[in-house]
């Protein structure tokens, strides 16, 4: 590298103005990833300026990490090289919102929470009930690939993103898709950007399909003595005509995690009284509809709960359930605040195998003397938090053993496992991106194609991509 920090800052200032170029070390600390701190940060306010900055970085052989609200910088591996933070929070406009068409175009740095307010005025919303919701940006949410309980009904971002504009690693501003709800013109490059953690491109604009706001959702909660019972209810629902918006299974360990101070700080709405009175497994299913649909859902769910050997806890209104729904959405940050060395394992597995994986999690936690809690989504996703009491070498060893055991069970069942969050200093010991897949060589080709100079978050993603 030949460029000096001073020269870089000067050139960045030429692109996005001195006021939007950060060189103060104190201020740069907020962009730190692990021990790595960039020499500058730039806050462009247009896609064109983003392209200019990426072009500059690529030309100088610099590496940059794109960020929004920085709520998820702790995900993934630390970058191999980190010269520049590309802060997109000034790219925060709604570009086109057409309520009549249920389509929305936004800049990547817009806050989900402010967007939500805008959409609600038209009784619409985006089904992105994602962790860090109150501070998260649209771009960060999409790029990090975090999931949402509402995927049970609405699918994930890939199912309702219609198009994107992004900047390649060479600094070329480009796009794919469009803004209509059905479109097969050209390659779906935007799908590649989802969950790629900014390693293939810098997302600058996103077009979404919006949805009518679910009116008066209700949440049915049932309790079970074990995971098998909870999963039996899940299976009965899947094999029925019911179409819940979300269906989450909560392990007994959730009671402590959701009752703690951190939970209250992150989601101030209280939990319904007596929800966690037993140390049992809970199933929370959200559904929506008019009175007759509600009655039907409730009676069917009650019947299925009995059949699965559980007990109905309650049917809660939206207001009553806000505290639980918010905590389920924010499970990750709540768990991270619950232990000094919380480690979140995310597992994708066939629904019929969830029982085995939950058992493997429980076994691994017990054998390694770790507290644990899990939220399992009915579609076949498990978020398990391992919660050591201390952040030290001994905890690292125990967490490593536990994650290896869980990974072994997952792999044997053809599932997918990653460790999206863990203490920064453990990342080299834990296989946070899981097992290398058969298509890794093709992914390497993609990375090479989109980011030939290794400019975009090098080393953050799977297999060092």
């Amino acid at each position, binding site marked *: 590298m030949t460029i000096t920090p001073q020269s870089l800052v000067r050139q960045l200032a030429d692109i996005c103005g001195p006021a939007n170029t950060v060189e103060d070390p104190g201020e740069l600390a907020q962009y730190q990833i692990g021990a790595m701190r960039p020499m500058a940060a730039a806050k462009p306010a247009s896609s064109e300026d983003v392209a200019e900055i990426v072009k500059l970085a690529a030309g100088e052989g610099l590496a940059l990490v794109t960020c929004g609200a920085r709520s998820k910088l702790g995900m993934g591996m630390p970058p191999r090289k980190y010269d520049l933070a590309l802060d997109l929070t000034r790219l925060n406009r709604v570009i086109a919102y057409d309520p009549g068409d249920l389509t929305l175009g936004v800049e990547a740095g817009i806050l989900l929470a402010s967007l939500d307010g805008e959409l609600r005025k038209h009784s619409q919303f985006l089904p992105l009930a994602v962790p860090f919701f109150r501070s998260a940006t649209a771009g960060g949410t999409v790029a990090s690939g975090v999931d949402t309980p509402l995927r049970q009904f609405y699918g994930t971002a890939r199912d309702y993103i219609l198009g994107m504009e992004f900047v390649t690693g060479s600094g070329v501003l480009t796009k794919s898709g469009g803004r209509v*709800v059905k479109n097969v013109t050209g390659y779906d490059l935007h799908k590649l950007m989802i969950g790629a953690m900014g390693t293939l491109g810098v997302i600058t604009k996103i077009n979404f399909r919006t949805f009518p706001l679910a009116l008066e959702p209700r949440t049915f909660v049932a309790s079970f003595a074990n995971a098998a019972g909870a999963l039996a209810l899940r299976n009965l629902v899947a094999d029925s005509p019911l179409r819940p918006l979300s269906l989450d299974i909560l392990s007994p360990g959730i009671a402590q995690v959701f009752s703690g101070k951190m939970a209250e700080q992150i989601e101030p709405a209280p939990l319904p009284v007596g929800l966690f009175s037993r140390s049992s497994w809970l199933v929370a299913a959200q559904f929506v509809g008019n009175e007759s649909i509600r009655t039907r859902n409730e009676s069917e769910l009650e019947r299925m709960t009995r059949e699965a050997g559980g007990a109905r806890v309650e049917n809660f209104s939206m207001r009553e359930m806000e505290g639980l729904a918010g905590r389920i959405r924010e499970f990750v940050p709540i768990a991270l605040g619950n232990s000094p060395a919380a480690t979140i394992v995310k597992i994708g597995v066939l629904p019929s195998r969830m029982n085995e994986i939950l058992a493997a999690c429980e076994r691994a936690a017990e054998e390694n003397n770790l507290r644990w809690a899990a939220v399992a989504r009915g579609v076949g996703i498990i978020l398990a938090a391992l919660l050591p009491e201390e952040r030290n070498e001994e905890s690292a060893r125990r967490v490593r053993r536990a994650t290896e055991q869980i990974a072994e069970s997952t792999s044997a069942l053809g599932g997918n496992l990653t460790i999206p969050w863990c203490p920064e200093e453990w990342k080299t010991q834990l296989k946070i991106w899981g097992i290398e897949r058969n298509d890794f060589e093709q992914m390497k080709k*993609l990375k090479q194609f989109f980011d030939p100079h290794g400019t975009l978050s090098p080393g953050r993603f799977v297999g060092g991509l």
Partner: protein
Amino acid sequence: MDSRILQELISLLGPGNVRNAAEDLLLYEYDGSVEIARPECVVFPRTAAEVAGIVGVARRSGTPIVGRGAGTGLSGGALAREGGIVIVFSRMNRILEIDIPNQRATVQPGVVNGDLSAAVANAKLHFAPDPSSQRACTIGGNVAENSGGPHTLAYGVTTNHVLSLEAVLPTGEICRFGSAALDATGYDMTGLMVGSEGTLALVTEVTVKLTRLPETVKTLLAIFNSVDDATETVVDITARGITPAACEMLDGWTLRAVESYVHAGFPLDSAAVLLIDVDGLREAAESQAGEVAEVCSRHHAREVRVARDERERALLWKGRKNAFGAVGRLSTTYYVQDGVIPRTKLPQTLRYIGAAGKKNGFEIGNIFHAGDGNLHPIILFDARDPEEFRRAVATADEIIGYCIEMGGSITGEHGVGMEKDRLMPLLFSPSDLEIMRGLRDTFNPGGLLNPGKVFPSKKGCGEIHARPLPIDGNAAGTEAKRAMDLPRA
């Protein structure tokens, strides 16, 4: 074709699975589009290993390869535009696994779409994408084109239902993308492959999600005396946040053509009908049917009929799904477009299509997925008259140009293929296209797979003078002088 290549293919597949007689090749020179291109050889592999072997032969000799399912495609995607080998997947037609508890199925690419749904109907499941050609079209073809259908309005298109693929790459490697379990680690390779129109890989196995059949389906037929009232109804249904399972429109001309063929019970004297499915729990379907009927009445529907039983329901849908067959009885050739518009723009777009037909002297029928703004104007013409063909295509181009001005797209479900490649510059800038083309060349170096598709030929590029749309924009200022680089008749 070089006899050595043929010999290699024969020794690989056996003589019965390699055809190159003129009368055999004739069967594979067309698809559902107006395009024609004859392959030099047609092969019928039975395994992924055989496909890989064919790719090896093709690679060594630099012979183009094109994958083909049932040949029902509407954009020339399965045609051998530059000659070479057509790989027909009709012998790879086994359903490999049905996993009822997990609502998954793994199939070979030659499995017919409707056959998969039929195979799981007893378990009250189905494969949700339902192209009108579903009784013939294959899942491999659906994957290549990212096919839709009437019920994709509520259930999504093919890409929303594909979890994993096994594919032979142009290098001859057999690779698996994605997994039956959700959230496969790494880049969404499956998402890239679905809809890539056979230009990146040859799919040899597909794992899909199966969807629970709804408890109740109610089919409504709303009858209108004016096209405007029908389109305004669709706008209003969408704006009110009602999502029917399907919302199809047939204009008067089309429904009369259909009625004389299928006798579905469409009213012959109406200007337009909407065929609307609402589904879900009995209670949900009933309340939605009520809401839909109310909106229809508000927009002066002359009558809203609700199918009384499954037989009536099936008959109405038979009318819809066989519409193109019915049109075929009226004219030997017709040209179907696939433009998409934002749904709020339906009324003016339908008026524009009517005017464009009148101006250019064509009868244009409309039967389309109104609920998601996916138009299918049908232009009748006589292919024996080259001048008329030229005008038909020019008229279709005018309509597509208007769709793009409205903020829409050139294809909603049929694919670009060799039919709309020249229109790509209306949506994408030269640099956008360069990136997509570069990606193709990364996976498909030398254009071995399906050459001449999706991207405009370099020569054609300069003939289209357009300012492409920004991702968020209306092309109010599009100076679209569309090329007269016509498809070959």
